[in-house]
């Protein structure tokens, strides 16, 4: 899922300081799961902003809505009838949702309440870590399910560097060496012979550095 965290409150307050009525829109998908922008977090942000304004002698009217997702037109459409009543929308979705919202409702400023960080998952309750960088050429089948593009600081494709020490990356002792993990997993799978096979030179054209990406499925277009 996409993992994000809430921006500092003073930054959000800075966006809306001249507003009297705002619409805070949450998202029921990834940002709910990482406790950043779901219905609960919308309520907490609404309360915090109202109090911050009251403290300065101003009143802020806040409407709270949580959509199923903000990256699909059908769900964004649900707020069409109420959007014009507000001075601004504060979107608690990931960067994708904020952009879709801003594109759909162009007559009203849309501000992000979150900093979107990475594609990842929960290691345990309250701890999320990055697992995928969307390189577009998945090699997880060859690396025993561990991604060296994401988890190796140098994105090496054929084994660890000289900085790998006791299973940890030289950048930080808390970061495991991805290639150590891969070797250990290949051993457990009795596929250590695969380690000797060189991966073919990576086609980076499908990665973000080649420009923003798009998929078109003609079979699904209407």
């Amino acid at each position, binding site marked *: 899922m996409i993992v994000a965290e809430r921006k500092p409150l003073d930054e959000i307050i800075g966006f809306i300081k001249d507003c009297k009525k705002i619409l805070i829109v949450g998202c029921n998908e990834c940002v709910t799961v990482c406790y950043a922008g779901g219905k609960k977090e919308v309520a907490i942000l609404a309360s*915090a902003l109202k109090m911050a304004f009251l403290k300065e002698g101003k009143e802020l009217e806040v409407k709270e809505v949580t959509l199923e997702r903000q990256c699909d037109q059908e769900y964004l459409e649900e707020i069409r009838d109420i959007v014009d009543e507000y001075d601004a929308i504060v979107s608690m979705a990931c960067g994708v949702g904020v952009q879709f919202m801003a594109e759909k409702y162009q007559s009203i400023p849309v501000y992000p309440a979150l900093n979107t960080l990475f594609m990842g998952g929960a290691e345990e309750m309250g701890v999320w870590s990055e697992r995928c960088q969307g390189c577009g050429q998945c090699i997880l089948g060859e690396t025993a399910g561990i991604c060296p593009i994401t988890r190796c600081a140098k994105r090496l494709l054929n084994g660890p560097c000289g900085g790998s020490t006791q299973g940890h990356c030289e950048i930080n002792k808390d970061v495991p060496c991805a290639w150590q993990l891969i070797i250990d997993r290949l051993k457990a799978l009795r596929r250590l012979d695969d380690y000797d096979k060189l991966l073919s030179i990576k086609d980076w054209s499908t990665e973000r550095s080649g420009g923003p990406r798009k998929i078109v499925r003609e079979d699904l277009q209407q």
Partner: protein
Amino acid sequence: MPCTGRVDVIHLMEAFQRGADGVYVVGCLEGECHYLTGNLRGKKRVLYTKQLLDEIGVGGERLEMYNIAASDGPRFSEVAREMDEKIRALGPSPIKTMLQKIHVDDLSIHV
């Protein structure tokens, strides 16, 4: 509430939003929670809310959590006195002050 594990951040925020000068959450002694770890969850949420209250300028010191055995009446009243003294020393919450001012301003329109 059946357990301080049911206390959520929004409950605490709403209390302050409605003008509470101070809020204290009282749970079972650590290690003696009827639901095992409810009071530990409550504690973490209280700590998170204290940070939020600091961020918005209301003051996290207006919110505290205490752990008291259900049968310990004397400690309960001691904590009540302690919290009361602390909040009196801090003075009224800035939110309450503004809510009162708005209410008076609204009233003056009708006079």
